């Protein structure tokens, strides 16, 4: 349909909408997060869902206790090596389409605790992260901003073609291998198919 016809129909009181737009609109406005608090950031996540910041205005207030009903995993806090297998397992149990927000410095990179022996240096060693929120902890507004960023990402997705999102592709895995606890560290310590750190080059 061309733009002129759409505006003409709209003038006549008929709203037309593409399937892609409708699908993305539906997905982006009902992101149900998993009620999953790890550490300090979880308190700011709860604060974001409370009266002052009111996450419900974005259709994301339904914190599901079970991963089977959730679309979004907000990794809110430090992921320790003892907890990492459970985090991956929870992600694997979520149905597609699923998204991950790494909230706070600890979830992105280990943050202030990254030099600890039991702290995973970033949840993106095991999971694909869609949006990162720096801050320690980020304000509730920052979480809302990240949610809006995610909504923008979702509404811009194409349903067909090579750029289609992960959950519509057959080559992208829906589940990731769960690490196990070894004698000194996690085994494996990182998911090498996922974690490709940037080679740092500085002008010498």
């Amino acid at each position, binding site marked *: 349909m061309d733009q002129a016809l759409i505006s003409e129909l709209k003038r006549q009181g008929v709203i037309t909408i593409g399937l892609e737009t409708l699908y993305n609109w539906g997905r982006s406005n009902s992101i149900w997060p998993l009620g999953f608090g790890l550490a300090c950031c979880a308190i700011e996540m709860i604060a974001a869902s409370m009266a002052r910041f009111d996450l419900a205005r974005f259709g994301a207030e339904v914190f599901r206790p079970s991963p089977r009903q959730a679309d979004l995993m907000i990794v809110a806090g430090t992921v320790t090596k003892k907890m990492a297998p459970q985090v991956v397992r929870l992600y694997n149990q979520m149905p597609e389409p699923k998204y991950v927000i790494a909230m706070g410095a600890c979830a992105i990179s280990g943050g202030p605790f990254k030099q600890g022996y*039991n702290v995973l240096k970033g949840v993106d060693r095991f999971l694909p992260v869609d949006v990162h929120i720096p801050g320690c902890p980020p304000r509730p507004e920052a979480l809302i901003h990240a949610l809006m960023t995610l909504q923008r990402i979702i509404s811009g997705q194409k349903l067909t073609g090579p750029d289609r999102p992960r959950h519509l592709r057959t080559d992208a895995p829906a589940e990731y291998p769960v690490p196990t606890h070894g004698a000194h560290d996690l085994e494996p310590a990182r998911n090498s198919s996922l974690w490709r750190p940037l080679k740092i080059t500085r002008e010498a």
Partner: protein
Amino acid sequence: MVDFAQPENAFKPGLPGAAEPACRVVPKYSDQGEREGDWLEISMGPQHPSTHGVFRMDLVLEGETVIRLKPVFGYLHRNHEKIAEQTTYLSSMPYTDRLDYFCSMTNNWAYALAVEKLAGLQVPERAEYIRIITAELTRLQNHACLMGFLMQDLGAMGTPLMYAFREREKILDLFEALSGARMMCNYMRFGGCRIDLPPGWLEQTRRLVADFPRFLDEFEALLTGNEIVMARLQGVGALSRELAINAGISGPMLRASGVNYDIRKVDQYGIYNRFEFRVPLGAHGDCYDRFMLRLLEMRESLRILEPALKDIPSGPIIDARAKLRNFKPRPGEAYGRIEAPKGELGFYLVSDGSANPYRYRVRPPSLINLTILEDLCLGQKVADVVIILGSVDIVLGEVDR
């Protein structure tokens, strides 16, 4: 003299010094019931909506009755102590915020107190007042939120927690104006505080303190007379006085069991001896007592805040001898403890004369208060485990550190 080293003397009733086993309810089973197939083993957590974070309990149930409970820790073990041994004394201050992330001000104070003891620093009067004001505000917001979470565990989804967070946001606004951050204040320094109060802060705080009783009245009207709350909390998870002392329980939980031990009164750290306040005590030690005791403590906190906000003197806020950089205390050790909202929060520091502490130990009240979790839960229904855990008031950042 009884030789306690002999294992047969351990844990026996009647012996002086042996732990009191009276609370340990021994469940009775029929011959068939002892078969393993009739028991249900549940791993509650680490991702569970009621465990207040990443805490895990391995439960063994017979029907709905708990017959064994083993807490499993470490899912938030962030190596705070190890990191602190590798950085300077000052650098550990922002990390203490993240211990009990509800109460960064009291954590700061406990650490500052330990370092001040170690280095022999004096705190100016104005800083002492600021410390008391911030600590009592912290206690208010911690207890309010705790009650909200406890009600959430009872099944009151949202409403009391929403009210509690409404009040908490007001206190966090004050903290943000004072220190720059809502939760992680990083406000206190060795020998005082970081910056002086911003203009108008005291007036705002006075207004908040004047308004706070209205919220408490509302909360009491909403909850304390509620039949469901009473039915679910009364008589559940009773903790005896002897076991509470023996297990090192501290804070509101200890006082709910009837032990008059408040470190603000006992140690009189800071300038708490200048304020008049009462120490509420419980009679039964059950969940309802713990719940009510925190409500009463909030009223007492307000009684401390009112005169503190009135009498706060002007003057310097930090000891002139305090150094920010190149701070190297003499070799030695010190243990500083305060009455944090969760209980006795202590910092044990060993200095070897270098810029980093040789040993940095946090005495976490939340962890030690969980020692008796199994004793409280044995013989109770599985639904009550959630409430008992809620009434203990733990924060995982402090349990696992």
